[in-house]
């Protein structure tokens, strides 16, 4: 996982969010504009330039009790304004494994 330190020189190519895992249970969460975390990508704060991204990441890193391993992840925003993960990794983090789990196979 890319650590926040490695993202000091933040350059983002498009709309992005800050994501992490919630500390007590590990689920995927997104940093919101209200200085908290949400399990819903639709509630994530969207940043569009490096300064915004850096500020949001710094705020996320400071909340070490709430979530761990925060980093910036790309998103895509559809014509309808719907936010979608920007790559396969983030898609899997959001929607879960792409395979049947043993009990379902």
């Amino acid at each position, binding site marked *: *996982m890319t650590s926040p330190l490695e993202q000091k020189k933040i350059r983002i190519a498009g709309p992005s969010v800050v994501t992490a*895992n919630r*500390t*007590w*249970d*590990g*689920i*995927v969460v997104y940093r919101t504009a209200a200085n908290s975390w949400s399990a819903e990508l639709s509630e994530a704060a969207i940043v569009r330039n490096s300064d915004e991204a850096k500020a949001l990441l710094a705020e996320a890193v400071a909340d*070490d*009790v709430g979530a*761990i*391993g925060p980093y910036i992840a790309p998103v895509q925003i559809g014509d309808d304004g719907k936010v979608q993960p920007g*790559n*396969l*990794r983030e898609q*899997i*983090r959001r929607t*879960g*494994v*792409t*395979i*049947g*789990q*043993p*009990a379902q*196979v």
Partner: protein
Amino acid sequence: MYAYDEIDRTLVNERVSEFRDQVKRRLSGELTEDEFKILRLQNGVYLQLHAYMFRVAIPYGTLATNQMRALAHVARKYDRGYGHFTTRQNIQFNWIKLAELPDALEDLAKVGIHAMQTSGNNMRNVTSDQWAGVAPGEIEDPRIWSELIRQHTTLHPEFSFLPRKFKIAITASDHDRAAIKIHDIGLRLIKNEKGETGFEVLVGGGLGRTPFIAKTIKHFVHGRDILSYIEAILRVYNQYGRRDNIYKARIKILVHELGIEKFSREVEDEWQHIRNSSLQIDEEVIEDIRSRFTYPVYEKLPHMPDELRQAAADPDFEAWRKNSVAPHKVQGYSIVTISLKPTGGPPGDATAEQMDALADLADKYSFGEIRVGHEQNLALPHVAKRDLPALWKALDKLGLATPNVNLITDIIACPGLDYCSLANARSIPIAQELTRRFANHELANLIGRLHINISGCINACGHHHVGHIGILGVEKNGEEVYQITIGGRADENAALGTLIGPGVKFDEVADVVEDIVEAYLALRERPEELFMDTVKRLGVEPFKERVYATR
């Protein structure tokens, strides 16, 4: 089975209390994640894509049925009803909550299971042959020595902050089922000309970004000296191993850079200082460990019981028996491998229901003992041949009688991008598609022994370098791309596979494997010529031509 003593039980229980306190302090904010990370890693807790992952040790791959039931309980109560058996005789739970981990650990501790040294830069779970103690022709049960090393290295301060993780595997058979040549230290139990028990010691094996096959550093180390010799190796590693670059920190890099001759001289010098110290093992110590391994009281049974003779008329039973049943050192008994590779299933996964039911079957048919192998399958080590038909029927009902052990669908795969935060590409869906492609067991038998290994990144947890066909997932321009190697193997003739050409896309991988298999079937000189024999005879070129001719 090995019976833990009071010291072991106290250690495991104290560890649970300690971790409970650490988790409490983490959740309250008293510990930062930076401070906590090393503590959770020392207790087998990783952070993966969707959740924490909890890795539990199964020392030398031996499980009692109450331990298997405890694993099922953890899967059911704290996870999502299943667990994943790994390539190093561990089990992983993928959806565990940090807040509940101390309770899970406490439940496991009640049956003597723990997660110590399943992660972090320390001595990892010592692994061994899953047929240990029952394989015909074995020098001695290698678990006795695995246990000795486990006792010596567990929480040993000198081995707790190594430059990088450190893995030891031990075999005592001519045929290596423990993959010792891809371990940091591989130990092969042997007898010298005087009939004394000792070890051929290999060092510097490992896969990952820079794969190496281990080299023999000493042809014979007496059993009484094995701890001091291992310690000498670790001291040289601790002294010279790189800590500035994680990619160059494993002992294999040090051995490669110093050369095996210089490395062995350094070890020899160090060893001379410590070999006659308290590290020399008294025979009583070994005897005490030996006495704590209990073995079944076997019955005197016929080689070919009537039950087996009658069942042989059923072709489905015979297909399974030929594939999954191996000779036992005691007449009338067999070792049964249980495939965790059902058609369309994730390799190595078992549900809580399967684990519980397997524990019941092990109680009924295998003296209460289960084994875990690095191929991500399980085994029942002491099954009377007369019970094989009944066992097969019971396994079949549980979805655990797929007759594909050592065949093309007996795939080793890492969790890949579906679970792992390090992965670049998915592994499990590739394995699932291949098991569907080759689901016809007649075809799989026609192909014969063929191991496919799949890794979702260069860290190589699926051991792709040593797969007869190796598949490595990488990411290129935002897409999953898979590199194919052939000719690798993980046994006593371990070798690294050769890359056959440019990577292929996710949905082309199964087609490529089919092409390779078709080429093999056309090229082999006779049905008995295995895939690896054909590769050895002809090299990779004919396969390369076949794969890329139309791509």
